[in-house]
C-alpha cells in the first residue's frame, strides 16, 4: 500500500507512458528469467539466442515481422473493444472464423481480377470475424452475459465448428489430414522474397508477405476511428462512464455492438496473413494462440496504435527468437513463451500501478528541483 499522492498534472507524459511501462516490462522479463532458470536453462544464454534468432540474419528478421503482422491485428482487436470497456478475449475464435471468410471468398471468386479478389477476401475476413463477435456483443448488451465468458465459449465453439467443416465439408478429399485444398497460386499475396528478388537480394523462404502493409494501414485506421471520429468519441464515452453517456444521448447498445464487431473484424484479418499470405489453405487450429497474445500486446501498448506497434514487434522478437531458443535448448518449449505473455499481462496490465506512484513522484520531485535551481 502506497500513500504517495502525486499531482497527475505535473507528471510528464513520457514518465507515465514510456518509463512506467518499461519498468513493468523489465519486471515481467526478470520473472520470466527466473522461470527459465527453474526449467534448468541459463536465462542470459536464452536472451542471446532470442536476439540472434530475431535480428541475426535476414530470414530471421523477416519471420519477426511476419509474427509482428499477426500481433498488430490481434492487439488492435483487443484494444478497440477495450476502449468501450469490453474484454474481447475471443480473438482466437474470431480469427479462426475470419480465416474461413478469406478462404470462401478467395476460392469462389478466384476468376475475378487479382486485386479485386484480395480486397474482397480482406472484406470477407473482416465480415466473418465481425459476425462471430456480434453474438457475444448482443448478449452482453441486451442480456448482460459477461463478454469474457461468452467470447471464451465462442472460441471453443469456433474450434468445434471449424473441425467439423474441415473434416466433413471442406476437406481436401485427396488428403487424410483435416485441411482444405490450396488456393490457386495466382491469387496468393506476394511474399517478401518476391519483393527482395526485384531489389536483387536473394533470401530463403520466409512467411512475410504483403499483409504487413495491411497491418500498418490498420494501425492508422484504428487511430483515426477511435480518436478522430464522432463514433470513436461516443464509444470511449460509453466505456468511460455508461451512465453519463446515456445522459448525453449516446446509445450503449449501438456502441457495444460496433466496438465488438470492429474488434472481431480486426482479429479476422489474421486470416488474411495466414491463408492468403502464408499457408494458402485452412489448417486445423491455425490461429495458434495469436488471439490470446493480442491481449498482452494491447495492454503493453496501452491500447494505443503507437504503443501497439512496438509491443507487437517485441512479441514478434519473442516468438521468432523463442523458436530459436526451443531449437537450441531442449528444456524450453514454446509454452514457456505463453507463460512470458501471462507475466507481461500481469505486470503491464493488472499490476501496472505497482511502482507507478513511486516512479512518478521521483520524477516530479527531480524535475521540480531542476526548475527551482
Amino acid at each position, binding site marked *: 500500500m502506497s500513500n504517495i499522492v502525486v499531482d497527475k498534472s505535473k507528471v510528464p507524459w513520457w514518465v507515465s507512458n514510456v518509463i512506467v511501462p518499461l519498468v513493468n516490462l523489465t519486471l515481467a522479463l526478470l520473472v520470466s528469467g527466473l522461470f527459465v532458470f*527453474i526449467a534448468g536453462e541459463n536465462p542470459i544464454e536464452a536472451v542471446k539466442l532470442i536476439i540472434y534468432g530475431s535480428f541475426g540474419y535476414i530470414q530471421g528478421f523477416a519471420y519477426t515481422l511476419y509474427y509482428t503482422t499477426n500481433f498488430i491485428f490481434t492487439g488492435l482487436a483487443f484494444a478497440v473493444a477495450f476502449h468501450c470497456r469490453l474484454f474481447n478475449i475471443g480473438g482466437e475464435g474470431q480469427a479462426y472464423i475470419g480465416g474461413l471468410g478469406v478462404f470462401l471468398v478467395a476460392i469462389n471468386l478466384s476468376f475475378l481480377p487479382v486485386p479485386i479478389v484480395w480486397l474482397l477476401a480482406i472484406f470477407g475476413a473482416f465480415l466473418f470475424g465481425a459476425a462471430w463477435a456480434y453474438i457475444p456483443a448482443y*448478449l452482453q448488451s441486451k*442480456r448482460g452475459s459477461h463478454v469474457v465468458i461468452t467470447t471464451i465459449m465462442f472460441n471453443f465453439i469456433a474450434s*468445434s465448428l471449424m*473441425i467439423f467443416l474441415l473434416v466433413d465439408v471442406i476437406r481436401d478429399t485427396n488428403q487424410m489430414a483435416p485441411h482444405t485444398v490450396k488456393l490457386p497460386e495466382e491469387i496468393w499475396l506476394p511474399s517478401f522474397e518476391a519483393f527482395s528478388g526485384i531489389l536483387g537480394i536473394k533470401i530463403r523462404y520466409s512467411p512475410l508477405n504483403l499483409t504487413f502493409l495491411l497491418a500498418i494501414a490498420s494501425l492508422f485506421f484504428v487511430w483515426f476511428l477511435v480518436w478522430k471520429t464522432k463514433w470513436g468519441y461516443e464509444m470511449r464515452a460509453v466505456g468511460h462512464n455508461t451512465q453519463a453517456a446515456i445522459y448525453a444521448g449516446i446509445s450503449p447498445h449501438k456502441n457495444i455492438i460496433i466496438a465488438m464487431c470492429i474488434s472481431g473484424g480486426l482479429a479476422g484479418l489474421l486470416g488474411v496473413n495466414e491463408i492468403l499470405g502464408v499457408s494458402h489453405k485452412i489448417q486445423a487450429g491455425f490461429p495458434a494462440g495469436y488471439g490470446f497474445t493480442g491481449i498482452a500486446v494491447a495492454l503493453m501498448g496501452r491500447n494505443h496504435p503507437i504503443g501497439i506497434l512496438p509491443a507487437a514487434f517485441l512479441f514478434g522478437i519473442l516468438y521468432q527468437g523463442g523458436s530459436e531458443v526451443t531449437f537450441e535448448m531442449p528444456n524450453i518449449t514454446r*509454452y514457456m513463451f*505463453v507463460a512470458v505473455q501471462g507475466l507481461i499481462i*500481469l505486470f503491464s496490465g*493488472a499490476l501496472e*500501478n505497482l511502482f507507478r506512484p513511486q516512479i512518478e513522484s521521483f520524477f516530479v520531485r527531480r524535475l521540480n528541483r531542476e526548475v527551482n535551481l
Partner: protein
Amino acid sequence: MEFLSDIASLINSTLRISTPLVFAAMAGIFAERSGVIDFSLEGKMLMAAFVAAVGSYYLGNPWLGLLLAIIVCVCLSMLHGFASVTHKGDQVVSCVAINILIIGLTTALAAAWFGQAGLTPTLNEDQRFLEIHLPFADALRDIPVIGTLYSDILSGHYVFVYLAYLSVPLVFWIVFKTSFGLRLRAVGENPSAVDTAGINVFTMRYKALAINGVLIAFAGAHLSTAVNANFFREMSAGRGYLALAAMIFGKWHPKTALIACLLFGFTDALQIRLQGVELPAIGEIPVQLIQALPYILTVVLLAGFVGKAIAPNAIGQPYIKER
C-alpha cells in the same frame, strides 16, 4: 432392466463429472460474494492439477499432493488479491494474466522436468486416489431400486465426489448463517458501509480469496490424481469458465449453483454417451456438435433465458478508502 442400468450409469457419471465444477463454483461464490471477480478459476484449477500430480509423484502420497496444490492455489489467489485488491488493478486483466501464465507454465515445466510435451508421469495406485466402495455395496446390489441407488450410484466414487457435495451445505452455512458470511456478503454489496462499521474491507476480501484457493485446489486434484492418473496439457478444458457460468446462473447461491453444475455435468455425461449413436429421425449427430454442447449450453444459460442474474453490487470495483 438395461434401461435402468443405463440411467444409473448416466447419473453416476453426472455426479463424477460435476465434481470439479461444484468445487469451482463454490470457490467462485466466496470470491465474487466479497466483490472480487474470479475468472482465474480456470487457471487455478489447471495449476492445482499440475501441482497435485507432480507432488504426489515425488512424495508418493496423493494427500500430500493435494496439500501442495492447496498451498499453491492460495498463493495464486493472494496474487490476484495483491493485484486487484491492494493495487486496485483491473480484476479481469489480473485473471486473464493468471490463466495465460498458468497454461504456459504448467506445460513448459512438465516438458522441462519430464521430457514429454505437457505430460506428467503416470501415477501408480499408491500415488493417486482410488474409488471408495461403500460398505455392503456388493451385498446390496441385487435388491431392486435400493440396490441400484446405493451400489451403482452412491458407491464407487472418488473421495472428492463426496467432499464436493458435502461442501455445498457447508458453504451455504458459512455464507448465510455465520457472522463471517454476513460480513462477506456485505463487503461485496456495500464495502463503504462495512468499512464504517469498523470491518477491514481488504482483510475480508483476502480471507474470501484464501478460501477460494483452498476449494479450487480440490477441483484440480480431482482431475489429475483421481479421475486421471497424470496431468496433461490444458486438462481443465474450460471447466473454470463453465463453473463460473453455473455460479452466475445459480445467482451466486450455493444451492442453485449446484443444480446448474449438475446440469452441466449431465450434458457432458450425455455427450459422451451420444457420440456415434444414431438418433431416430435425425441420424448421427456430428461429434463436434455434441462436444460443443456444454459450451453452447453455457452461452444459453448466461444469456439468462431462465431469469436475470443480479450480481453483488460492488463486484469488480476496487475499494478505495476515503481519506
